[in-house]
């Protein structure tokens, strides 16, 4: 009995040792040399593998970075400046200081502002709806509300608001750009978060002339150029019947917000007091539209402006 045991253990043990030795030498022979810094860099990356940096995953980003030898064009939006500093430390380089960005929804064509004129009965994807028809509010540039942007987000940062029919971005957004890609109407744009998280943008991408644009949506940009005329920093560009605010040049003075006749320009995270003054100005202003519509626009717009993006003070 003991003999059998000894023979069994001995022979199996011998086979095991021989196999281990063979494997060790084979592993050494076929070893691929990899710069050990790639592992170190990968270690500090967030492992989200989201592709926001433009590379196929965190490992690929680390490989590209080590191979390039410099930090130009490399930015991990999820990790942000902290992670890029750490990576710079490992590689002995200097990190670029990049401005944090956030996705911005440039449409305010909610159910209230752009009432439904037809009932959509097709599949729930914007890609299909955008080819099929203009949109249930009538504006052929506005948000279709089927949520391709929501589906594209890996960070739980964008959600559809069922009351307005528009998507809303919260501060989990790390500006990876997936929603920008997904939107077939190019409504979403990555803009800088801004000092104290304040930013101003034109919430309309409509390229129609003023009259038909306004007919479909009460808060459309009608291309009147009032904002362009009043901007002291030359930050506004008029193109294709609409205004565009360059976020690099904008100094957040808010003069454009005050003069916009349709409230198409939105200011985010500014103190509330300014809005009440705005409301009074609205009432005093002579408008071509009927008194009721004006009232509806000013109250509705105050509501919709604040619901478009979550304020800093609110819980995320």
């Amino acid at each position: 009995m003991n003999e059998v045991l000894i023979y069994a253990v001995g022979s199996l043990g011998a086979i095991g040792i021989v196999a281990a030795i063979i494997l060790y030498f084979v592993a050494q022979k076929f070893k691929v040399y990899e710069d050990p810094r790639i592992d170190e860099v990968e270690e500090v990356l967030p492992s989200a593998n989201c592709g926001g940096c433009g590379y196929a995953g965190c490992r690929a980003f680390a490989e590209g970075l080590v191979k390039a030898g410099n930090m130009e064009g490399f930015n991990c939006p999820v990790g942000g400046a902290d992670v890029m500093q750490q990576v710079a430390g490992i590689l002995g380089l200097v990190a670029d200081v990049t401005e944090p960005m956030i996705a911005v929804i440039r449409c305010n064509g909610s159910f209230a502002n752009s009432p439904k004129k037809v009932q959509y009965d097709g599949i729930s994807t914007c890609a299909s709806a955008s080819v099929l028809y203009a949109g249930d509010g009538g504006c052929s540039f506005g948000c279709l509300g089927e949520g391709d942007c929501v589906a594209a987000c890996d960070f739980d940062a964008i959600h559809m608001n069922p009351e307005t029919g528009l998507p809303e971005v919260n501060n989990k957004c790390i500006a990876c750009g997936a929603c920008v890609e997904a939107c077939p109407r190019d409504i979403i744009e990555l803009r800088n978060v801004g000092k104290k998280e304040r930013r101003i943008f034109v919430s309309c991408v409509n390229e129609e002339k003023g009259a038909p644009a306004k007919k479909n949506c009460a808060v459309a940009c009608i291309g009147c150029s009032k904002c362009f005329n009043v901007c002291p920093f030359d930050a506004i560009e008029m193109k294709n019947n609409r205004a565009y605010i360059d976020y690099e040049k904008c100094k957040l003075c808010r003069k454009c917000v005050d003069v916009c006749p349709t409230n198409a320009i939105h200011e985010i995270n500014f103190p509330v007091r300014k809005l009440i003054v705005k409301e009074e100005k609205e009432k005093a202003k002579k408008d071509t539209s009927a008194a009721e519509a004006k009232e509806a626009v000013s109250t509705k717009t105050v509501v919709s402006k604040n619901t478009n993006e979550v304020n800093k003070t609110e819980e995320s």
Partner: protein
Amino acid sequence: MQTFKLGGVHPPENKLSAESVIETLAIPKQVIVPVGQQLGAPATPVVNRGDEVKVGQLIAKASGFISANIHSPVSGKVFKIDNVYDASGFRRPSIIINVEGDEWLDTIDRSDDIDAEIKLNQKEIVNKLNEMGIVGLGGATFPSYVKLMIPDGKKVDYLIINGVECEPYLTSDHRLMMEKGEEMLIGATILMKGLNTDKAMVGIENNKPDAIEHLKKLATKYKGISIHPLKVKYPQGGEKQLIKALTGREVPSGKLPLEVGCVVNNVGTAFAVYEAVQKNKPLFERVVTVTGKSIKKPSNFMVRVGTPVKDLIEAANGLPEDTGKIISGGPMMGKAVLNAGIPVVKGTSGILLMPENEAKRAEPNTCIRCGKCVSVCPMGLEPFLISKSAKLAKFDVVEKEMVMDCIECGSCSYTCPSNIPLLDYIRLGKNKVGQIIRNRNQK
């Protein structure tokens, strides 16, 4: 009875207006003429605000090889040239004319006598069709003169005239064959001359026995034209299916019918060719069917292009209360329209008013892998696989499954027991794969 073998479905025919004689619709007070009524480039306006125009006058010129001239359907004054909503809600450049009287250009022969003598030669016919803005009236609106330009080395064995009208509800082609049959056959003869061929086959579905009879009698006078009754099956009127049914030849994937020696034209196009060549009349009016289960008077109207659709509905005794969808075209391949203010264009074959209970799509269920979609696809594709792959964004699989062969006939969605909107996803896949292929070819 001849038909195509692969796939096909049998939707209920509902040819409610088959007996309604064509009525000429009253000219509206204002017409909206879009400049992009054809496949290819939109035409360029050659009139300005305030210009006086007569019926048949050129108001927009073809702006490229694949484009067509547009002629005024009314006489009056150009009100403005502006963007106007089309069927899908997009704004397209159009010429808006306020109507005054009904004065035609005196170069147009307005008589009704049938003129069978073809005085133009082949080249002149091609130029005439281009000049008169003739496009395919089967729905695709492809400029007809381009179809007649046969490249060297290719020969046309058969001209095929499509009198099939396989879409349910539509009867404009049927009535045209009954009432303008001889003119249409002369148009076919002109096309034969233009294509340099001596054989033409007219395909007509078996649910139009009166048209078959009538044309068979007339065709004895015209050399080379034979009338062929076909079994009723959708999509018998699809170009490739029609060629297969009549000649047994299969158009290879990605190629035109010319590859197998055939050119297909709709009966409406043949009639327009007759009017263009023999009467010097450009294309500015066509037969449009107004139909639907709730409509009081399903009718066929001869309508000037640019007439708002609501005028046609009024003439058919008004919009039914329970209308859920307004469809331009037939129920299988037509386009749902956002409102009735849009104008009739060269490609409008019918207006279908669908009641709400039929218009609402049922809730889709899970795929039970019954394979019915595969058995009805006339192109031999696997709709369930293409649809699922497109939904999951696996566009390499979608391309491998030959989605570019899909003719978007809708048989798959029609037959699916689980009400899955197969064609919606297939179209998504087709658009994306088309983009991918274009990007690949550009590199």
